[in-house]
C-alpha cells in the first residue's frame, strides 16, 4: 500500500481491492462475528452509538495520519484534546467571553500546541517521539493548572458539538466532514503530498527542494487541530471538560492509523484506512460491552482482535505482492 493512486483499470480487480483493504476485511469479519454473537449488534441505534463512539478517536487519528505519513509520531494528542476542551470551556464558563468564539479558541490552542511540538522537532531537532512525549506531560500539566484539577462545564457551542442536529448526531457529522477534509488535504494538496515525500525519504525530499522543516511543523499543527476538535466533541458529549479527558488516547489513535495500513516508518497511510482502524477498535469495545464480557477478559480480547485485524492486512498484502 502506498500513497500512489493506482491506475484506473477496466473492470474491478478484486485481488487488488483486498490488497489495499486488508483492514477492511478484518473489520467486516469482526462485524460478522459480532452479529452472530449478538443480534443487538446490528441494530440502527447501536450502529449510531458506534458512530458516535468512534468519532473522538477517529477525528484524532485523522490528524495523526498526517504525522505518521511524514514518519513522525504524536504522543501529545490526548493532552491537546484536554487542554483545548478545557480552554474553550474556560473561555465561556469562567472567563465569560463570547461563546461564539469558543470553538475557534479551542482549535487555535490545539494548533498552537501542535506548532510547538513541530518546531521542537523540526528546528530543535528532537525526535518526534521525544518532542511529543514532552508535550504530552507539559500540556496535561497546564490543563491541570488551568482547571485546578476540576472539571469545567462546557459552553453552548462546545456542548452542541456533542449533541444532535435533527436526527443526526453532530459527532457523526463532524466525523464525516472532517474525514473528507482530511482525505482531501492528504491526497490532493501540496501539504499532503509533501508529507508523503518527507515520510518516504526525508533526505530525497529535502534535496528535491521540499521545505522539510515546514512540512514537519505543518503536520503537527494539523494533528493538533484535529486533536482539539476531538477533545471538544468529547467534552461536548459530556457537557463538561475534564482535566483527565482523553488521557491515554494517543495509543488508540496511533493504533487506528497503523491498523488502517499506515507504516510507522512513514510514507504510507490513508484516511479511509484510519477510519477503518478506528472502527475496528470501536466495534470491539462496543461488542464486548454488548456481550457483557468481563472487564478483565475484555482487555485480552481487544489485544487479540487488534493483532488479528492487522494480521489480516499483512496477509492480504502478502498474497498479492511477492
Amino acid at each position, binding site marked *: 500500500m502506498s500513497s*500512489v493512486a493506482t*491506475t484506473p483499470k477496466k473492470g474491478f480487480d478484486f485481488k487488488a481491492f483486498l490488497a489495499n483493504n486488508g483492514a477492511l476485511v478484518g473489520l467486516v469479519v469482526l462485524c460478522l462475528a459480532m452479529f452472530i454473537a449478538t443480534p443487538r449488534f446490528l441494530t440502527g441505534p447501536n450502529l449510531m452509538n458506534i458512530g458516535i463512539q468512534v468519532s473522538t478517536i477517529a477525528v484524532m487519528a485523522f490528524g495523526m495520519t498526517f504525522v505518521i505519513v511524514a514518519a513522525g509520531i504524536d504522543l501529545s494528542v490526548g493532552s491537546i484534546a484536554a487542554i483545548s476542551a478545557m480552554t474553550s470551556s474556560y473561555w465561556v464558563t469562567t472567563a465569560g467571553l463570547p461563546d461564539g468564539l469558543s470553538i475557534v479558541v479551542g482549535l487555535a490552542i490545539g494548533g498552537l500546541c501542535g506548532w510547538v511540538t513541530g518546531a521542537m522537532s523540526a528546528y530543535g531537532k528532537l525526535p518526534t517521539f521525544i518532542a511529543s512525549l514532552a508535550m504530552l506531560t507539559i500540556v496535561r500539566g497546564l490543563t491541570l493548572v488551568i482547571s485546578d484539577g476540576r472539571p469545567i462545564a462546557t459552553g453552548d457551542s462546545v456542548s452542541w458539538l456533542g449533541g444532535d442536529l435533527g436526527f443526526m448526531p453532530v459527532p457523526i457529522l463532524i466525523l464525516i466532514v472532517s474525514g473528507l477534509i482530511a482525505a482531501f488535504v492528504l491526497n490532493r494538496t*501540496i*501539504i499532503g503530498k509533501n508529507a508523503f*515525500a518527507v515520510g518516504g525519504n526525508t533526505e*530525497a525530499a*529535502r534535496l528535491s*527542494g*521540499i521545505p522539510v522543516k515546514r512540512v514537519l511543523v505543518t503536520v503537527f499543527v494539523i494533528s493538533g487541530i484535529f486533536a482539539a476538535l476531538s477533545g471538544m466533541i468529547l467534552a461536548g458529549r459530556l457537557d463538561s471538560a475534564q482535566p483527565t479527558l482523553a488521557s491515554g488516547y494517543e495509543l488508540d489513535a496511533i493504533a487506528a492509523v497503523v491498523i488502517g495500513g499506515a507504516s510507522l516508518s512513514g*510514507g504510507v497511510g490513508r484516511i479511509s484506512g484510519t477510519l477503518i482502524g478506528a472502527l475496528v477498535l470501536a466495534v470491539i469495545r462496543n461488542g464486548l460491552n454488548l456481550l457483557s464480557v468481563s472487564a478483565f477478559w475484555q482487555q485480552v480480547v481487544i489485544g487479540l482482535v487488534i493483532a488479528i485485524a492487522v494480521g489480516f492486512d499483512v496477509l492480504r498484502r502478502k498474497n498479492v505482492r511477492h
Partner: protein
Amino acid sequence: MSNDALLVLDRVCKSFGPVQVIDEVTVEVHAGKVSVLLGENGAGKSTLIKMIAGVHSADSGRILMDGKEVQIPDTKASEALGIATIHQELNLVPSMTIAENITLGRVPRRFGIINRREMRRIAREALDQLGLNLDVNTPVGDLGLAQQQLVEIAKALSLDARVLILDEPTAALTNAEIAGLFEVVNQLKTKGVGMVFISHHLDEIAAIGDFVNVLRDGKFIATVPADTPENELVRLMVGRDIDAQFPRQTATPGEQHLLSVENLSVGALQNISLSVRPGEVVALAGLMGAGRTELIRAIAGADKYTSGTVKVAGKKLPRNDVAAATRAGLGHVPEDRKTQGLVLDASVAENIGYATMASTAKAGLVDRKGQRERAEKVAARLRIRMGNIDQPIRSLSGGNQQKAVFGRWFSAGAKVLLLDEPTRGVDVGAKVEIYELINEITSSGGCVLMASSELPEVLGMSDRVLVMSQGRIAGELATNEATQDSIMALAVSNVHREDEMGKK
C-alpha cells in the same frame, strides 16, 4: 552446455506479476573466467544474478553447480555453495564500522562472544587486498560513496568464494580504484574463481572479461568473446547502432556568469571559487575523496558551508536552503539515488514530479493531471523502462531509477544543473539520451556543473575541466586540450605536495 562449467543457469524464467523479466536465459560461469553480462537498463541482469544470490527464486529452469542441480532459497544457501555477491545497490549498515560490515553475518566468535581482534584482522586483510588504507573502525556512514562501494567489494572478497558476482561494482569508482579492483580480479582468476561481471563501461569488458553474454528485454541474445568491438557489442545490446557516444554540441557561452562560487570553504574544501557561464558544461574531476561531492552539495544548499558565497545569475543564494536554490533554478542530481534521490515507495510519476509540485500547484492543490503528463513525457524522452508511471520506483532497474532522478530536474526546467555522477549505472544508449538533454539545457541558456569519475565522460561532454585535489581546485583545463593523463597529473598534485610537506 559444456561440462566443465562451475555454475549454470539453465533456461531460467522469472516474472514479477504479469511482467516476464527473464525469459529462458541460460548462462554459464567457468572457473578462472570472467563472464560478462551485458544489456540495457532493465534488461534483467540484476534479476538474473539475484537468482544465484538467493534473493529471487526462478519461476522455472534449473541452477546447476558442478553439474548438480541446486536450490538456492536464501542468501545463506548461496553463501554455503561458495557464492559471494556484490549487489548493484549498496548493502551496508551505515551505523556500523567497516570491520563490522565486512564481517556482517559471519562475525568471528566463540560461544557467541565476538572476537573483535579477529574481526578487525579479517577486515584489514580484505581492505589490503584492494590496497585500501582506511581505518577499519570508521563507521561506514562516514565514508563517501566510492569508499562504501570498495568496502562492499572487500566484504565479498573476504568470503573466499568459488563464484564471485559483481553487479556494477565500478559504477561509483574512479580509474585508480577500478585498476586496483581488476588486479584483484586477475589474481582470483589464477586461483580458479569463476566470476560474473556486470558493467555499462564497455572499455572494462575487454580489459577484464573472457566472454560476454548479451541480454535484451529479458531474453538471451548471444555469447561473444570479450574482445568483440564495442560498436558490435552495442548493436547486440540495443539492437541498433549508436552514432556518437558523446554527442556534445558546444554552445557559445554567454557573457554573464550564471553560477558563481566565491571562496567557499567547508570541511575539507578550502576557498573554492569557480564560475559557469550560460551554455557551458564544466566538469569536476578528481580522485576519490577529492571533495567533488562536498562541493556540489554545498552549492546545492544541501549542506552548510562555513564561508563564501554562491550566486545564481548574480543573486546570492542563502546557505543550506535547497528550496531557495531550487526556486533560483538550481537542480541537483545527488551521488546516491537510493538514499538521496528517490522516495522508493512512491511512484515513478511522483518521484519525477517532486521538484515541480510546488511551482505548478494552484491554491495549494497539486496539479495531478499536469504532473502526470510531465512525468510521462520525460519518461518517454529518457526511455525509462517500466510497466507504468504509477509503479513504485523501487521496482525499476537501477539505471532507470537514475534516469528518473535526472528527469526530475529536466522537467522542472532547471537552469543550473549540478550533476554528481549523473550516469552512474546508466547504459550506453540511455547515456546518450541524458547527454542530449544536457545539450538541450545548455543550448537554451542553461549551464551544467558535473562531477564525474568517468574520464571519457568528462572529456566527451564538458567544455572545461576543473580538477580537484584534496579539497582544492588544483587546476583548470580546456576540454579540447585535456587528456586523461593531464587530468590525472593535476588530480594527484596536492597529494604529492602534502607528502613532501609531511616529510619536512
